[in-house]
């Protein structure tokens, strides 16, 4: 009982030792699983196969060429067929086509108008007038949701110029839009003789502010744009334009789409310009900006303007907006297009991941494994880490090769490749690795639960590949396949989305066009949720059942 002869064990020491032992044990478990993985030649080959099929499908099979032949001339293909698309200030492809009635404006000034009417026409024979004398023959009355009429200040009448505009739209009320990609909502409601809209743009150097008003006396600021490097003398005036009318009818088995040009007519009065080069009293010039654009809403040959006293009636067709991937967008591609082989890679990875678990049962090795590491969940976690890490590397390597080479091939073939920011590109590349990693963990967990490799592989493929297949092959109606893309593990593919959804452009933002219903990380989270639930189930069953 002499004090000092016993060394009391301090609780935190014990905990520290245990934690160290735990980490040490887990590290050797990881090492054991890694050795198992790399010593089975078939599994290593399986991972290499995954990378190779991703490249083969993505670069060789998923190629699109633009071909053309001008009446009797030699058949051409690729870039020779395509006129370049106009690019906006941010470098993105844009539609820039509108009827513009304008005057020069100096470095500061104000343009105010009253818009009393916005009406439209659409349909017809693909832009070819039924009778040359009457371009409106065969058209129906009606506005598109984003038909627009309003005022605009633009660097020049060249397509793709920097601009800021405030307008009234077909069904989205007043909006201030600038530099193609930005749109801010203003006063809601439709415009008409009983409810006119007053619109105002104020330029001060590079800054342009947009205001709207119901009565011309009480003004509300809608938005402010900063257009870097705006020229001293710009063009200011009234415009009207209307994007193509798109009607997509979805059927089981296929969808049917119709595109036709449309027209919007805006009626303006109370036009006041201060800061114009001629002191506001200059003559107004009419221009059909971008009427020769190769792809886009098309022309109806009815674009015009006339002026009677202080009243301007302007009719235009086209759009001032970014190009999106969908019907009528011309030959375009996204940087993710060449990752289509992820499906094939995924099947190879799933086969390897499932066998990584089921092989233990088949050879009876599982009893040795569990005897060496009686805490069974740690075995499963170690396997998940190993197979997940290997799959991540495989996916990343495949994507880093396929994306830049694919974009180059598209460029040579005459396709416009939608530009993606560096952050988006990094997310798509790393996301492909993460996608394969989490799907491998899911496959491993299912393999551990069902123990039968054929059933497990089928479950993974049916859960991940089939929902996407049903969507792109249009076997199911769009609503049903988009629902599947939200709730099944296939939602994870949205991490590969590189296209941007623009609410100010009407389009069918669906999976076959490269837009997933959940955001990139939202969809990935759904996949992670599946993997977590499957891992929990696998741990539970591994502890409960005899090996």
């Amino acid at each position, binding site marked *: 009982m002499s004090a000092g002869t016993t060394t009391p064990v301090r609780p935190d020491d014990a905990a520290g030792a245990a934690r160290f032992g735990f980490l040490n044990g887990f590290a050797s478990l990881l090492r054991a699983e890694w050795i198992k993985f790399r010593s089975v030649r078939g599994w290593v080959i399986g991972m290499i196969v995954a990378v190779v099929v991703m490249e083969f499908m993505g670069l060789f099979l998923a190629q699109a060429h633009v071909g053309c032949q001008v009446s009797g001339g030699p058949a051409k293909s690729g870039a020779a067929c395509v006129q370049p698309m106009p690019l906006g200030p941010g470098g993105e492809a844009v539609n820039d086509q509108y009827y513009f009635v304008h005057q020069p404006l100096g470095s500061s000034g104000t343009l105010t108008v009253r818009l009393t009417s916005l009406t439209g026409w659409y349909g017809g024979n693909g832009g070819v007038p039924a009778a040359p004398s009457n371009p409106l023959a065969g058209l129906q009355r009606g506005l598109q949701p984003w038909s627009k009429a309003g005022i605009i200040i633009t660097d020049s009448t060249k397509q793709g110029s920097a601009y800021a505009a405030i307008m009234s739209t077909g069904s989205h009320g007043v909006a201030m839009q600038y530099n193609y990609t930005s749109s801010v909502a203003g006063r809601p409601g439709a415009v008409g003789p009983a409810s006119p809209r007053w619109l105002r743009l104020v330029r001060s150097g590079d800054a342009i502010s947009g205001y709207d008003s119901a009565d011309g006396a009480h003004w509300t600021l809608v938005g402010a744009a900063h257009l870097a490097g705006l020229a001293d003398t710009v063009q200011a005036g009234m415009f009207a334009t209307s994007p193509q009318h798109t009607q997509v009818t979805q059927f*089981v*088995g296929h969808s049917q789409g119709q595109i036709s040009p449309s027209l919007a007519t805006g009626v303006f009065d109370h036009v006041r310009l201060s800061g114009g080069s001629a002191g506001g009293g200059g003559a107004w010039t009419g221009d059909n900006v971008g009427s020769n654009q190769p792809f886009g809403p098309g022309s109806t040959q009815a674009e015009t303007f006339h002026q009677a006293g202080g009243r301007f009636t302007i009719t235009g067709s086209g759009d001032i907006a970014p190009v999106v991937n969908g019907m009528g967008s011309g*030959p375009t591609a996204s940087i993710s297009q060449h990752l*289509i082989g992820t499906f094939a890679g995924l*099947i190879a990875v*799933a*086969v390897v991941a499932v066998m990584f678990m089921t092989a233990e049962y088949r050879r009876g090795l599982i009893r040795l494994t569990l005897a060496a590491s009686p805490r069974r969940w740690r075995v499963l976690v170690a396997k998940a880490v190993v197979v997940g890490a290997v799959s991540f590397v495989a996916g990343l390597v495949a994507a880093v090769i396929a994306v830049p080479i694919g974009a180059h091939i598209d460029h040579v073939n005459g396709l416009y490749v939608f530009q993606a920011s560096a952050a988006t590109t990094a997310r798509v590349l790393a996301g492909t690795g993460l996608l394969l990693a989490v799907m491998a963990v899911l496959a491993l967990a299912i393999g551990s639960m069902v123990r039968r*490799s054929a059933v497990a*592989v*089928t479950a993974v493929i049916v859960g991940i590949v089939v929902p996407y297949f049903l969507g792109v092959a249009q076997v199911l109606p769009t609503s049903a396949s988009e629902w599947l893309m939200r709730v099944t593990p296939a939602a994870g593919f949205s991490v590969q989305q590189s296209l941007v959804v623009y609410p100010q452009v009407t389009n069918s933002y669906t999976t076959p066009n490269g837009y997933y219903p959940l955001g990139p990380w939202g969809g990935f989270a759904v996949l992670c949720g599946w993997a977590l639930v499957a891992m929990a189930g696998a741990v539970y069953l591994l502890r409960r059942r005899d090996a």
Partner: protein
Amino acid sequence: MNMTLAVRRDALHAEWTKLRTVSGPAWLLAGLVAATVGVGAAVDAASRCPAGEVCQVDTAKLTFTGIDLGQAVVAILAVLAFSNEYSNGMIRVTLAAMPRRGLVLAAKAALVTGLVLVAGAVGVLGSLLAGRLMLPGHGYTVARGFTALSLSDGPMLRAAAGSILYLGLIALLSLGVAALVREAAVAIGVVLALLYLFPIIVASVGADPHWQRHLEQIGPMQAGLYIQATTNLHALPLSPWAGLGVLALWSAGALLLGALSLSLRDA
């Protein structure tokens, strides 16, 4: 001659005993029927063609959509019929008792395909019945030009019978692949990749119709399922029976390679 017949009967009997005495195949056959009828009925229930609209829908394809999933169950059944023997070493007993290896493969093929045809027929007729009960009420009536959901309609009879044959050919394809690669996980991965990847590639080469058409002609699933088409036949890349023929070529090729591999390699 009698001797050969007896051997063949014995081979069939042995395979039948193996299939009959484990519960897996029975469950998978039930799963085949459930997947085919269930998916078909769900799609029937979700589809509408409102009055006044023009719907270009093929009622045969619509009501037999369940085959898209049912074929995965067929692939599991056929692959397991072979791979299971390799995984538990039974194959050595089988081949010792039945040294003519081609006969073993033939007996398995005959039995598995026969069972799949029977269960497939139940699934296809069930789907047809579900379509018949639901689709006319959703606007898909004969009066509006849709194919009648009845076996007395020539094209519909061809679509129904062809769908059953399609499942049988998928069984043969899977069996051939399983004999070739042996490992169940790899075999099922190869079969499902062959089936589902072609349509995904086709959808992604949108801008090149020429390439697309060729891929549609050689893809085992897409070509094989032309047998379900009853409308717009002239627009198909292949005629319905030629499409099923493409799948038959895939199955024959897989079986041939499987038979070669079985007789040349050690078990």
